[in-house]
């Protein structure tokens, strides 16, 4: 039994998820509330189970997955954000006849997949975790069956995702073929034996391309705006937070652990993806009128900054990536929770940026929360969103990539424009038709909590969070 102790969080989620699926099957729509809350409890229990030695005591199953602090840290930020996605859906699907308990179950299974992703130290585990997450995600994207946009989103995501998985698998097969091993350590040793062969380089490029798709980094971002716009908003919130963090963390571990000796080979790819994401995310967002599409481009932009930290490499870069993704998840979830509260008088969701017009005069608190998230996503001090950006640039400068840092930071100025546009609409335009007032205290509390964390008060977190990310990043080396 001792062998399974490190897997306690995953066990809780898998077994609990299966039981919930049974409950869901037998109670139908009536049980959806109960199942949701039980799923939240499961996710929180899994988070609590991360505390303590077993979950980061060392390699598990002969190096198939790692039980280290890096993985635990990743899980600790992903499980709660999955829980938030479940809570957020509660109020949102209320009027919808299609909401059923499967939603929560799918998210729980997706969380299992993500936790395998961040702890994978073998290409097989990597692929299994990634596919588990993806399959759950495809279903979630088309969750509103009768809505055309949702169906389109699911289909698009599935087709493109399958293609990306194919590319990834091809890369994995090349890596396996040329090294004869699936484990990260073995691959690292193979790369360390001298200049990598052409086959290895091909494998590396294909694997990174597959991961870039999952993290929606340029040039594999094309699906993001359409899927984010089409999927139901709580699902979009989920996509933009946990799975994205899982993909970035997985890429970090793969690059630093398995491909460590081949840093020169992957660094130029990551630098390109980072800068391309930063600028494409910033420029393409200009013309958007739909807030979900805009946030989709914002998420592409943000992945670019996280990848900047990865390009910097080393423990410092990895720590910056972890810090960045943590704060990014909080800002994004907060922003999407606000988007979910944009509903007209009849309670139908509104996604037009123009509908935010004059919000500061009709709902000052709500507008202030959105403004905080926008300024924070733009990385303007004194909001906390500035600090992770600073850490990422610091890592880049410290490892001698000053030009990269300069280019990326110019990207923040380009991107600042569209965040400012939302604030301008809310604060400087005349009030539009008011939204209906939601009666959802839990969601309100979550928005408040997220807003407080990214407000200047967040700087108090730098110490504890920073030392945690440093330790987590240190466990990779």
């Amino acid at each position: 039994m001792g062998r399974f102790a490190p897997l306690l969080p995953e066990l809780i989620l898998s077994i609990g998820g299966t039981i919930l699926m049974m409950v869901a099957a037998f109670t139908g729509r009536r049980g959806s509330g109960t199942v949701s809350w039980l799923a939240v409890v499961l996710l929180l229990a899994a988070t609590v189970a991360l505390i303590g030695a077993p979950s980061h005591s060392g390699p598990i199953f002969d190096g198939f997955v790692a039980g280290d602090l890096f993985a635990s840290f990743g899980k600790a930020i992903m499980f709660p954000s999955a829980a938030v996605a479940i809570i957020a859906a509660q109020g949102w699907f209320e009027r919808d006849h299609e909401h059923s308990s499967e939603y929560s179950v799918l998210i729980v299974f997706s969380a299992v997949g993500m936790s395998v992703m961040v702890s994978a130290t073998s290409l097989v585990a990597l692929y299994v975790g990634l596919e588990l997450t993806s399959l759950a995600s495809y279903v979630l994207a088309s969750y509103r069956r009768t809505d055309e946009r949702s169906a389109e989103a699911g289909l698009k995501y599935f087709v493109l995702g399958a293609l990306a998985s194919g590319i990834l698998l091809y890369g994995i097969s090349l890596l396996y073929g040329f090294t004869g091993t699936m484990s990260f350590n073995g691959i690292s040793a193979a790369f360390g034996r001298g200049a990598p062969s052409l086959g290895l380089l091909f494998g590396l490029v294909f694997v990174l391309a597959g991961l870039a798709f999952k993290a929606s980094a340029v040039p594999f971002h094309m699906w993001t705006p359409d899927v984010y716009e089409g999927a139901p908003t709580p699902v979009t919130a989920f996509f933009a937070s946990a799975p994205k963090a899982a993909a970035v963390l997985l890429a970090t571990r793969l690059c630093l652990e398995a491909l460590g000796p081949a840093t020169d080979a992957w660094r130029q790819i990551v630098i390109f993806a980072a800068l391309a994401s930063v600028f494409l995310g910033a420029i393409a967002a200009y013309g958007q009128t739909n807030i979900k599409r805009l946030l989709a481009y914002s998420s592409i932009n943000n992945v670019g900054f996280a990848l900047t930290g990865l390009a910097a490499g080393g423990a410092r870069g990895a720590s910056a990536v972890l810090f960045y993704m943590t704060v990014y998840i909080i800002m994004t979830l907060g922003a999407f929770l606000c988007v979910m509260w944009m509903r007209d008088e009849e309670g139908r969701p509104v996604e037009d940026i123009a509908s935010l017009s004059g919000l500061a005069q009709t709902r000052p608190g709500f507008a202030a929360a959105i403004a905080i998230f926008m300024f924070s996503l733009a990385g303007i001090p004194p909001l906390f969103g500035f600090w992770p950006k600073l850490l990422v640039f610091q890592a880049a400068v410290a490892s001698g990539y000053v030009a990269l840092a300069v280019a990326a930071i110019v990207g923040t100025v380009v991107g600042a424009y569209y965040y400012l546009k939302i604030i301008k609409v809310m604060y400087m335009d005349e009030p539009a038709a008011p939204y209906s007032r939601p009666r959802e205290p839990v969601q309100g509390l979550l928005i408040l909590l997220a807003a407080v964390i990214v407000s200047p008060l967040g700087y108090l977190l730098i110490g504890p969070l920073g030392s945690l990310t440093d330790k987590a990043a240190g466990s990779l080396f």
Partner: protein
Amino acid sequence: MSGLPLLSLLIVVPLLAGVLCLFVKAPGARWIALVGTLIDFAISLYIWAQYDPDGAQWQFVEKMPLEGGVNWALGIDGIALMLIVLTAFLMPICIGASWRAIEKRVPEYMAYFMLMEALIMGSFAAQDLFLFYIFFEGGLIPMYFIIGIWGGAERIKASYKFFLYTLFGSVLMLIAMLYMADKAGTTSIPALMAFDFPKEAQTFLFLAFLASFAVKLPMWPVHTWLPDAHVQAPTAGSVILAGVLLKLGGYGFIRFSLPMFPDGSLQFLPLMFVLSGIAVVYTSLVALVQRDMKKLVAYSSVAHMAFVTFGLFAMNRQGIEGAMLVMLGHGLVSGALFLCVGVVYDRLHTREIDRYGGLSDNMPGYALLFMIFTMASVGLPATSNFVGEFLSLVGTYRASSWAAIVATTGIILGAAYMLWLYWRICFGTQRNADAAAMPDLSMREWWLLGPIALAVFWMGIYPESFLRPMRNDVGRLMVRLERVAPAGDSRLTLGKGATHMDHGAMH
């Protein structure tokens, strides 16, 4: 020295007042803001009184590590002290200027002003590189709202332009800061002021900081955001923009560029002089043809700020002290001029110069005060700007006589556009009946402009009160710059009589 964390109080008081403003109605918000700014002014005066000009370089030091690379480190020298007092002095006046002019969304407006005051105080008091950056950049947010919500017809464009221009300037500085922190292994500003960066690195560091401060100050050719922002901003917004926010640029040069990168400064000295020279002549000529009062004053700001850069990069005592006095004097005078524009704008709702005329007949009090500030802006002896501009020109002359010749034409052109403005507004025939019917200054407006007029004379007649706290700090800067200061072509020989050093020692 008292045990109270006075500098933190200086930041926290307006912040609290700002939060309070949000929870009350318009009249309450006005009073809370006024009381908050007055308390801050009182604290700043107390700090000035307690400041020991011969004491340690950094006084009222507070330090609280936040871990992870940033410290809540505050402390001031004489230079920061004077700018803090200037800010605290102008803030209650800004609130007073908005008392009636702002009618919509008053609590929010006051809250942004309070937030702005807190952030500006923080920028001047910060002793940690990143803390400074956070305060410095944070100031953009409230100003963006003030211009964008309460501004004129073109306010949206102006607010974007202001925000993105300044942001672009600052981000390059952030990268330079990261490099410095990495290289020197510390983020403490006093430690960095004594750190010698490699010569090659200084070139790039200087340019990165220049990008930020040149936009902020502003210097030609990156000044174009300023006229737009000024024209669109509400009166109080213009006052704080011209009076204090521009000073952050000059402060940046004194605090960072000169002491941290002396070699870089020397290297770019010709560039700085050329840019300043163009600014003086070009923006003065532009000011001459403006039809909008506010735009004219805005362009005159750019021209005056060129005296600051001239003085600073002369790298001698007169130049630097003169630059500081120009900053303080310009803070008062341009603030007052914007208030004067605001006074007539509130009555007639136009800033077009041609709509006014002969105001000295129906508004004698206004004409008197406007005259004082016009003369101060021109640099008439006994007013604040004379001392600053004179010292700055003397310093420039010692560094380069050609630069001084160009700079001096600015004084002549300045006299031309300011006196012509005054003539067109206050003298001549009364062409428009509505302008002729405007009532004279109200009690409130007297209270706004009167104290500034007194301060202008004080600084002009006895500048020693303002120079004394800065003297030792300028001296320390001189030591740092000794090696690189330009020799100059004026071949001045110091006689045996009282030198400037003796002059300083007499007091």
